[in-house]
């Protein structure tokens, strides 16, 4: 039952669930953004671990060594862009948080809901 080759996936699942828990259970909006970031890193880690080949090296061509094993470059490319897009969307989310704080004076979800009901 214990499969040593699968620890990497389990690590990713644990990280992912940590992020999911933070997003669901915490009422603080900045905390939620942090949770989303955690989740994102776990997905990136999942892809990168899948791209690794045993005995392989980084996917940069080594001159004069035609039988070098390279790790898979495709997940790297996808994750590279995902990180940068992730920070752009994080910035968008944070800008919403700032706007909400300016309008409501709080970044707690519960307080905002109470203020909306009270109106």
């Amino acid at each position, binding site marked *: 039952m214990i499969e040593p080759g699968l620890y990497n996936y389990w690590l990713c699942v644990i990280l992912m669930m940590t992020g999911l828990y933070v997003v669901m259970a915490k009422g603080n909006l900045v905390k939620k953004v942090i949770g989303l970031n955690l989740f994102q890193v776990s997905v990136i880690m999942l892809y990168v671990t899948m791209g690794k080949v045993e005995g392989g090296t*980084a996917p940069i061509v080594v001159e004069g060594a035609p039988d070098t094993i390279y790790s898979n470059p495709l997940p790297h490319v996808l994750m590279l862009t995902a990180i940068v897009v992730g920070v752009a969307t994080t910035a968008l989310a944070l*800008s919403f948080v*700032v706007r909400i704080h300016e309008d409501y004076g709080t970044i707690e979800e519960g307080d905002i809901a109470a203020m909306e009901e009270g109106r």
Partner: protein
Amino acid sequence: MIRHVILRIVAKTLIPCILLFAFYVQFHGDFGPGGGFQAGVIFAAGIILFALMFGLPAARRVCSPRALEILISLGVLLYGGVGLASIFKGGNFLDYSVLAHDAVHGQHIGIFLVELGVGLTVTAVMIKLFFLFAGRKHIL
């Protein structure tokens, strides 16, 4: 933070190195790790360090918000323009092989221009984001 001698001197020495390293990453991306995305972020980090040290107004004088907005669009337009240029040259959208006389050379030109476009956009966007957040309530 401009009154801290150590911080000021270290930042003054580091900022040119960071900017130079960004250019190295941008143009050496074909051979080693690096490329437009990383170079853009590193360049922006250099400017942000400058803004932290010498204040936001000084950084605004170095790269004005207007110029940043132009650069953001210019990068995307450069990328799209390379795609359109390859259509006009008789290939598919973003098919760089037709850009020069032989396919390999065309690919090199295409990748260089596209990475430049990505680098411009990422740099300008990251600096712009920092300015927007930092300039909101005059933190600096």
